[in-house]
């Protein structure tokens, strides 16, 4: 069993690794390794890592149940915050870098393009989760905290659909992602009915 000190170090290591994708894209920007559409590359990179962190976060509880180790649950909240972090960088790339805060065009996109509408909704839903993801709020909200944080199930579906709707033709990757999400969500219902 890991001692508490080791667990603390492990948490720092995981934290640094979770920042890896952002360091990676910064490195690519600095060394000029992005393709002919660099902003699209940054948007896709941060979008993908948002989705990966959704999978990682949702995988913690099933892993805890399967391995019967509580340690997984210790990192769930941190991973959840990384979802918000990557989703926000993703959104800011689109709003700030791509559209230069041209709010008319962005508003138009949100209304007219359903994949942007659902993606933006997912980001809005993440805000209350990010704001209440500290111990103090857990204590204040008590039972309600758990209920509130079940929003992540809806967010994960919104994220998958956002990806599915934006792909032009080859749906393989978004469908794999959606399947993984559905399996991870199925664990919740299974354990409930047990």
């Amino acid at each position, binding site marked *: 069993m890991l001692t508490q000190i080791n667990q603390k170090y492990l948490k720092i290591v995981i934290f640094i690794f979770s920042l890896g994708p952002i360091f990676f894209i910064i490195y690519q920007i600095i060394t000029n390794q992005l393709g002919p*559409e660099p902003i699209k590359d*940054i948007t896709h990179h941060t979008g993908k890592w948002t989705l990966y962190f959704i999978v990682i976060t949702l995988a913690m509880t099933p892993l805890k149940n399967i391995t019967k180790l509580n340690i997984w649950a210790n990192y769930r909240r941190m991973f959840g915050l990384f979802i918000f972090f990557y989703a926000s960088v993703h959104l800011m790339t689109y709003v700030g870098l791509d559209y230069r805060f041209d709010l008319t065009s962005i508003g*138009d996109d949100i209304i007219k393009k359903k994949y942007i509408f659902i993606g933006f909704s997912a980001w809005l839903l993440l805000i209350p989760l990010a704001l209440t993801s500290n111990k103090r709020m857990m204590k204040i909200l008590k039972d309600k905290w758990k209920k509130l944080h079940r929003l992540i199930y809806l967010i994960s579906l919104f994220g998958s659909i956002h990806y599915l709707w934006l792909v032009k033709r080859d749906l393989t990757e978004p469908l794999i992602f959606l399947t993984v999400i559905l399996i991870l969500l199925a664990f919740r219902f299974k354990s409930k009915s047990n």
Partner: protein
Amino acid sequence: MKKINYSEITSEKVYRKRRFFVKSLGLGLGSLSLGSLPLISNTFANVSENQPTSFKDITTYNNYYEFGTGKSDPHLKSQSFKTKPWTIKIEGEIEKPIELSIEEILSSFSSEERVLKLRCVEGWSMIIPWIGFSLNKIINKVKLKPNAKFVEFETVYDPEQMIGQRRPILNWPYKEGLRIDEAMHPLTTVVTGLYGKSLPKQNGAPLRIFVPWKYGFKSAKAIVKIKFVKNPPNTAWMNASPREYGFYSNVNPNVNHPRWSQASERVIGGNLLSPRVETQIFNGYGDDVANLYSGMDLKKNF
């Protein structure tokens, strides 16, 4: 991984000088040939204010699903594609169907440089110094029957060589089409090369079509058949999603697409700080082609 040796290719600087040379020639003697295409010479003047996109970007950032759906798939996976021997069948509503070899086409029709802008439906654009000639030169060689109202272009079907065709991403072989008056327009170009060289495989060698006022997918690559037909052809992308891709697919900032902004575009070759550029109706070629659509509701006929 096979890499293209760019040193073999005219450097951009030398290339631009040469282009300048061609242009200054054009002002004098060249008016003989350009004079017959007054509309084009105008267009060239407008577009050449912009610098052409680099050879590297033009030849490594492509949509050519026959070789895969990634942007770098075409240049990575097309290099062993055989473009010789190559024949193009011309058939359908014409008096006498013919077959032309690529050599015959190259020797019968003189090509010229045409710096034209490509606008992809995905919201990016390039300025490409194509080598080619007007499609109407070929059409004028065949006798059209009165029923020839549309023309259909068909890309080669060869899943052995084109690995993208092994999956049903699109309804292979790729088909595209134009109304006959669009096909006859001098800006509709048969492309045989770019940047002063023969056409790279990833750009549609040995022969493709290029229609500058329409989204890029309208311009079929590696063409083996040109067929004149009575009714609008059912094209590959219309087949895939009729709601998203219309038969005309003229560049139009006022017609929304569910995925990409059509109001603005990214010019390839920029950096992180380059702004988006407003998309122009008919990709900026409206003066030349708008009359083809007079009286038509372009939002309905998108």
